[in-house]
């Protein structure tokens, strides 16, 4: 198949494509599944991070 005789190399080749498809499906199915809230703690963390970065 595909000119690749070694089953392990063929598995890797097709496995890469399969994983990419799986990732796309995961992203589509979970698109809005998880919560999307920014807490005060998250915002404070980002402010601290920004402060260090800006000084840098």
């Amino acid at each position, binding site marked *: 198949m595909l000119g690749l005789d070694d089953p392990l190399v063929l598995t890797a080749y097709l496995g890469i494509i399969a*994983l990419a498809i799986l990732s796309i499906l995961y*992203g589509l199915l979970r698109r809005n599944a998880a919560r999307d809230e920014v807490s005060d703690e998250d915002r404070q963390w980002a402010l601290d991070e920004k402060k260090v970065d800006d000084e840098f």
Partner: protein
Amino acid sequence: MPDHASVGWIDIVVILAYLSVTAYLGWLGYRGTRSAADFLVGGRSAHPVIMAVSYGATFISTAAIVGFGGVAGLFGMSLLWLTFLNIGVGILISFIVLGEPTRRLGHHLGAHTFPELLGQRYQSRAIQIFAGVLIFLFMPLYAAAVMTGGSVFAATQFGIDFEVALLIFALITAAYVIPGGIKAVMYTDTFQGFVMVLAMIFLLVFTYSSLGGVTEAHQYLDGMEDMVPAPLAKIGHQGWTEMPVFGWGAPTYDLWWIVITAIILGVGIGVLAQPQLAVRFMTVRSRRELDRAVPIGAVFIMLMTGTPFLVGSLSNAWFAQHGPILNGKVVQELDAEKNQALVELMQKTDSGAWTAIISPKTQAPATAALIVSERQKAEDTNGNSFELVGGRSSVVTYVKGDADKIIPTFISTALPHWFGAIFFLALLAAAMSTMSSQFHTIGTAAGRDLYERIGTKGQQREPSLLVMRLAIVVGLLIAVTISYSIRQEYIVARFTAIFFGLCAAAFLPAYIGGLFSRRVTKAGALASMTVGLVVSLFWLLLVKAKEASAIGLVQLVTGGKTSILADSPNWPSVDPIVVALPAALLTLILVSAFTRPPAAEHLDRCFPEKR
């Protein structure tokens, strides 16, 4: 080799156009929202494409494209398993399993660097300092890999010396990272990511179409199995479309252990404990953003690693069909039907007679497997008549076995010159986005994790920007020195694998234990990190033949051998990660089982959701 290397006006136009767009995007970025933290501060969400491509651009560099692509040219398509792990582990497990817990823990504890995350989780200054020292000492090795990969490409593409290319590369890097450009400007990263994606798609399509199609290209490469250079065949290379011979206890299995443990496992698993990648999860707004980034991240990594690994392997077929003609005298017929023969390579002297080419490595006449396409009578320098054959060989012959030159040589020989300029810019983009995070990590390790934490009487000091900048300069100088002084077989991939393997052994058990277990203790984490590091260094210094013999200590200890296990086949090819990671994991479990668990109040602070 024909001279393809030069800088034409088209190259200059392409480079200037690219730099203008990058500069414009950078300027736009600095005027407004520019980093992941800015998005978070503003309460907005970075587009998942931006988040994923920016993460991928940090992960992928010249090390993956030139270094590992070249290794694929040498060892073949078994490297595709690394792409499989890059997606499966580097994207799926990383984003889905580790991303959200890392983000939450970092925000609960107010940690901003990877060592700080570990230190705060285990309430241990020693752990933070330990991790900071490890990063500061070894990250330059990885930066050197990225720099060497870029410099080898520039040298090949533009026909300049490697040393000159390295100097230019170092100056560009210094200009980019020292004055403050080290902050990830996400729009610029994303634009560079898109350039990389387009370049890879073009490269893949060109390679397959120039070889007649996907199946035809693979079949042709499959038919070249008898042309594998003898030194590679001896250690188990069976052809570029096959896995190396698997087994234990004989030198013919060495390649399997090199490819699987050193090349694939080290980087494939080590990505989980990369400090500069782990901290990126903290800048993410929510789990939803991580979920949405998974598809783009996976496709990006598939293109950015899968393409060079395939093209690296297939470049052997391309050179066998289209490479420059080599001449010589048949030593042995390999496959008469396919016109494949082992040939003693020869060159024409000024007098018109033919003389053998002497290999600088062996000081004997150089030989190579050719697909013979022409035969004629000729005369050698002694006046003897012989049959001179002409033909083409695998890319390994053209680059004289130097894997790091395979991708640059293929691009500069096979593809249009304007594409070489674009590909160079894509590589430069890949290198800069990776190096900016590498040197940022070195800077914060020195300034935040070491200088601030090693205060008088254990008191925390104020952050020092001067220390951070100095650390970046020192790290840069170390990286350049390493790149300049060490040029060995597939060194770009090896440096990368060493750093990834070290991070996996030293950090991974403590990092994952810290994210998911309430029972892991400070003593367990510190012991695990120490065992992971010590076992890795012991293995690199005394057991793993390539690294140990280059460092030299093992020769002193054993009286000239390249490994203390030189008499036990395969052990000298096994990567440290195979021994060090299980040892570190076992240490974490055992020491944690016999030491006092962390205080309940601290665990409640780390995991308030599980209260």
